């Protein structure tokens, strides 16, 4: 999403807009949910911080919609355009979320020869089309500029994904409208409160319990799943278990490693360090589909 925001920001900038784009990180772990925001205007931008009244919301991972802390609908109104990367169609999401405004989806299905769809470039491409002011050339230029350090095949695929999504949304060009400036004449009272003094037993930043972090199912963050091929695993076990930054790999008494998928964030460090290359990275949606197929047979 950071990449998508920068592509969109660069494309606006190339079209002569003033731009502000920024990612917002929470947990500093690969795979952790993040969001990013982009502002564009004809005049210098003085506003800062998280956008409270978005004109467009892009959701790159539809599993975040049900995560309350992700707050993907915060500040959205009937004029907010929603773009959800999902294999469920727009009507389903409109119904599911009770949305009145325009909802579009980008299918996550990759092209036949590809393993995954590059949703960053694709959603930047769709968003660019929605603005109605970003041309195809500016989008392509922005993708190339942003990804210039990648290998040429990766750049070309991203350009392809971005432009395909841009073309796909042709019918919705310009569906975004600019937000209005809120007047200072009649503003909403911020409702400040007086913070009372409270006893240290409640006002010190303490968690009263042990091992609470394992209760947080951070496995939900995963977009790629490490899967061990036990035929190739040589049971050295100490390498994957040691390098896992989240202690989510444990070894049985016979040194067979087991991945705790409730807490594995999908950082894929284990994939990189496994000496016999016995751990593969499988797109989470592919793995989930395989799981449910297995369960039904």
């Amino acid at each position, binding site marked *: 999403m950071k990449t998508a925001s*920068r592509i969109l*920001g*660069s494309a606006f*900038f190339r079209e002569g807009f*003033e*731009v*502000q*784009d*920024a*990612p*917002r*990180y929470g947990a*500093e772990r690969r795979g952790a949910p993040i969001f990013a925001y982009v502002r564009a205007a004809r005049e210098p*931008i*003085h*506003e*800062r*911080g*998280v956008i*409270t009244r978005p004109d467009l919301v892009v959701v790159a991972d539809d599993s975040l919609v049900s995560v309350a802390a992700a707050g993907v609908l915060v500040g959205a109104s009937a004029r907010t355009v929603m773009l959800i990367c999902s294999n469920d169609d727009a009507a389903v999401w409109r119904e599911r979320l009770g949305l009145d405004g325009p909802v579009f989806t980008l299918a996550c299905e990759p092209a036949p020869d590809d393993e995954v769809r590059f949703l960053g470039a694709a959603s930047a491409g769709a968003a660019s089309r929605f603005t109605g002011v970003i041309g195809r050339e500016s989008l392509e230029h922005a993708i190339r500029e942003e990804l210039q350090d990648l290998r040429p095949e990766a750049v070309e695929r991203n350009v392809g994904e971005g432009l395909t999504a841009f073309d796909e949304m042709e019918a919705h060009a310009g569906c975004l409208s600019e937000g209005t*400036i*809120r*007047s*200072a*004449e009649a*503003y*909403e*009272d*911020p*409702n*400040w*409160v007086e*913070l009372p003094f409270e006893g240290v037993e*409640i006002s010190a*930043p*303490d*968690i*009263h*319990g*042990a091992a*609470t972090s394992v209760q947080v199912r951070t496995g939900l963050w995963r977009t790629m799943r490490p899967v061990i091929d036990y035929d190739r695993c040589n049971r050295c076990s100490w390498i994957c278990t040691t390098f896992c930054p989240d202690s989510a790999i444990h070894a049985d008494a016979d040194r067979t490693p087991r991945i705790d998928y409730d807490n594995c964030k999908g950082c894929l460090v284990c994939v990189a360090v496994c000496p016999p290359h016995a751990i593969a990275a499988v797109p989470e949606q592919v793995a989930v589909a395989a799981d449910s197929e297995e369960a039904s047979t």
Partner: protein
Amino acid sequence: MSRRLLTGNGAAAWGARLSDADYVPAFPITPQTEIIETIGGWIGRGEWDARMVTLESEHSMVAAAGAAAATGVRVFTATSSQGLLHAMEMVYTVAGWRAPFVMVNVSRGVSAPITLGSDHTDVMAARDSGFLQIHCSTCQEVVDSVLLAYRVGEDARVRLPVLVNLDGFHLSFTREPVEVPDIEAARGFLPAFDPGELRFLASKPVSQAVAVLGGGPYSYFRYETHLAAQNAVAVYDEAASDFEARFGRSHPAVEAYRSEDADVVFYMIGSFATKAKDAVDRLRDAGQAVGLVRPRLLRPYPVESIRALLAGKRGVAVIDQNLSLGKGGVLHAELASALYGCPDAPRTLASFVGGLGGREIAAEEFYEMARVTREAAESGRTPEPRLLYTEDELRELRKLQGIAVAERHDTGAE
């Protein structure tokens, strides 16, 4: 000169590169890490001829920076929050060495509880150290301020290290259009460091920063450092004038925005000051005479400019994104001390503390601060200091406390 999208961290790195710094002692910390990653990339690819060394801590990093600067080398470094606090012993020490260098601080709230979000309590801890402080409100200011910082700190009338401060997230990770000066133009403004006697020559050894016994010599050296810092007000003004003549961008020690005919003024530092400008514009649209006064230079404190810009105002809303525990907002106390006894000082200085640990300050809150300050000026009753904290925030906090209580119950801790 080229205009491009740069993060505040990218702008800080460009400031260092355009300053031709020779030596970059480094230690990573969120949200500063991108600065040293960028510089490391340039040096590693041979695009910038400088030496970078990663030290084992910020304490060592500042010691290395000061030691290198004391040999007449141009030094750049950067840190944030806990890193700055960890370095604090050396921060005070190297300032006393009178060896100039530039350290960027990417502001982030201090522990405990630990956080990543921005506020200015970290850099306020260095307030009395002898480092000069320049506070930025845009990414453009970051690159320009690094160049200005070397010009001022290296001036023989000053010879002190300089902190250039930018807010974590709101500048550090935020891309904005930035004019990056050409290297030749930058060199025209900031020639190679002329260190004078500040050098390392094996044939002419010097013992720098010796110990003293007795308060007489100690007071002398400390006060000389204070006077040098105060000299930096005039030296800064000269440098900023020259900068504006060369690059067309004005970075006064104290920025005034629509304040000339204002009766109520916001007074604050850092990146949220641009939000205050928006608020000023909207309040002006609504017929209210409101302005903004923003010190960029906080050390030395440009007292005369501040007094002049606030003379005759009815009320000032001082917005502190820091908290001196047991006292309140630092900017408020400093402003009161600068204005006390001035015959045309504003009648009311209202104190607001907000934006701690990355908390946003909403447009409505600026409007409300203006209203409260105006009413206070009219009634002559200064309001109690106000923490910007809403009912919604307290409700969210109560939920967390509810969980904590449940945990206590579950674990039998009660």
